[in-house]
């Protein structure tokens, strides 16, 4: 049986340890930018800010880049070649549990046959260091209802701040390597584990479910209310900007695009992020649009979080990070939409 493993590091040693992580690949972490936070390469620990609410973009930009080479080609003679010959090792440092849930969602999608070699090549070179949230971030997040406010795997190590130290949960051999041969990393004493248990208990008092019903009820509401007026209302307010899908840690729709060099013979085929909120997303060259209307497109986005992936992968694709609501120019709010649906479902059920 595999045992759970815990270690700890004193805050005074943290900086030393962080610097030593450079040996494991390029470091990316949360950093302040104009009043918000973003994931960026971190050269010095002074740039790192672990006290943050979800970054503007999730870290998906590192394992599923916004623009990514798929294939190198030449037209005459017809030739194709690998577009990327080397993938670099990197460490994602200070990732919230909601964003780790996002990584787990992307994993099931891109590891499903036919596997996506680009994603897997990147992901295999990624080391994830999580940081546990100790207080709810803002009114937009729904991580508690999604069950993502506590660590649930998907990382190499997880840090939990506890007074003058961090408790470290080791979840893989890669994670173990980040701690290896560093004498200042100490074994966790039973007292530390008890403290951690108390911390988790206390979290239950502070973190409250955001939805008015449990996830099973959310799923049932989605199953029954495909034709609800709620979608018409959401569609009316939506401006079709696509911000919600760009910032979502589990949105992965893409388009494929060729770019030629100046000789007009050699070039690269790329994939770029695309959004189901764009009005040409489901349109074919004959002109037929198979998902017309912002109401249908918003509904599609929601169903891709709360219904379709549950049927296919047994996994909710909403992580509860709150980014879509936080970024929406029309103030479409995911918690409100889901709660309205639950409310309507309850009314309808009573009516029957």
């Amino acid at each position: 049986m595999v045992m759970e493993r815990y270690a700890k590091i004193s805050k005074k040693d943290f900086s030393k340890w962080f610097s030593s992580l450079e040996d494991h690949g390029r470091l990316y972490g949360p950093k302040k930018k104009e009043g918000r936070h973003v994931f960026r390469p971190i050269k010095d620990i002074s740039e790192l800010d672990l006290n943050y609410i979800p970054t503007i973009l999730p870290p998906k930009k590192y394992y599923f880049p916004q623009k990514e080479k798929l294939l190198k080609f030449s037209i005459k003679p017809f030739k194709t070649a690998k577009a990327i010959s080397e993938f670099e090792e990197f460490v994602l440092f200070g990732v919230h549990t909601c964003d780790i849930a996002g990584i787990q969602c992307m994993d099931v999608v891109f590891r499903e046959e036919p596997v996506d070699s680009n994603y897997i090549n990147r992901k295999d070179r990624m080391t994830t260091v999580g940081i546990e949230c100790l207080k709810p971030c803002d009114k937009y997040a729904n991580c508690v209802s999604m069950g993502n406010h506590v660590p649930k795997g998907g990382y190499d190590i997880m840090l939990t701040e506890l007074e003058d130290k961090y408790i470290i949960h080791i979840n893989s051999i890669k994670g173990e390597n980040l701690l290896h041969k560093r004498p200042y990393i100490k074994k966790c004493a039973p007292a530390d584990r008890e403290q951690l248990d108390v911390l988790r208990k206390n979290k239950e008092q502070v973190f409250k479910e955001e939805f008015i019903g449990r996830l099973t009820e959310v799923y049932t509401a989605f199953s029954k209310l495909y034709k609800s007026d709620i979608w018409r209302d959401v569609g009316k307010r939506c401006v079709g900007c696509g911000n919600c899908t760009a910032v979502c840690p589990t949105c992965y729709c893409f388009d494929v695009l060729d770019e030629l060099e100046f000789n007009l013979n050699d070039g690269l085929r790329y994939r770029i992020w695309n959004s189901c909120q764009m009005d040409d997303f489901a349109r074919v060259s004959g002109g037929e649009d198979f998902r017309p209307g912002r109401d249908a497109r918003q509904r599609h986005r929601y169903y891709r979080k709360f219904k379709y992936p549950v049927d296919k992968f047994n996994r909710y694709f909403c992580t509860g990070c709150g980014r879509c609501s936080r970024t929406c120019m029309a103030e479409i709010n995911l918690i409100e939409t889901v709660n309205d649906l639950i409310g309507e479902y309850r009314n309808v059920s009573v009516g029957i």
Partner: protein
Amino acid sequence: MFQSESKEIISVSPYRAHPAEIVLIKDYTPLEKLFRLKLPEDVEFKYTPGQFAEISIFGVGEAPISICSSPTDKGYFEITVRNAGSLTSALHNLKKGDVVGVRGAFGKGFPIDNFFGNDILIVAGGLGIVPLRGLIRYIMYHRKDFGDVQILLGCKSPKEMLFNDEVSQWGRHLDILFRCTVDKADPDWKGNIGLITELIPGVTLNPMRTYAIVVGPPIMYKFVIKELLKKSIPDRQIIVSLERRMKCGLGKCGHCQINGIYVCQNGPVFRYRDIKGLEEAL
């Protein structure tokens, strides 16, 4: 304590396209051309009628195109393409001897294994004849393994008829019942005039042993399926092929999604039974 993780780079990319030489071009209409494509000997390209390939012209892009030949046509495969978008218009400018990129074949084709020994009713509207031509060629090749075979073909006008060289042969085959209709006739048109739906009530069939295979423009399905159900054909024996924007062919990019399913992987051929509950399907 932990299993070590593999770090090998996966070098086989599903996005790699193979070169296919255009060995024959047939102009059927001012808008539609057939291309016969030949892949290098060492490239395995297996398909069943109803599947599609991703066709590339580097620098322009890639598009999903139905295969219109049958695996019984050895040594090449064929596509028939309407000049409608950027890739297809570039394709129309190519000549014999030019090379295009090919990925595939993708998706689920017609469930031919289920068709053997049964009667076949093919309903083709407009460009729907393109994937069905592959199926028809397959059935003709293995003709004795099927029961009655009927083909209903509809298009806007006689001028827009595809595969007219082959279509005129189907009409002469004694073992195939062939009917054709146009929305608008020319003075020398001798066939039916009217919608394809109007041909179905007059068809004689045994619903329990008939597979009805329907491919056509989106608007056609609702009306044709209604007529087929009136004939008591079970919904599991009504087969359709759905057009969607299939960008990657791998069930990832999201463009071809119908509710929870991906047309490029789960389709494009479906049993009506399996999609009738999906709001976005028909």
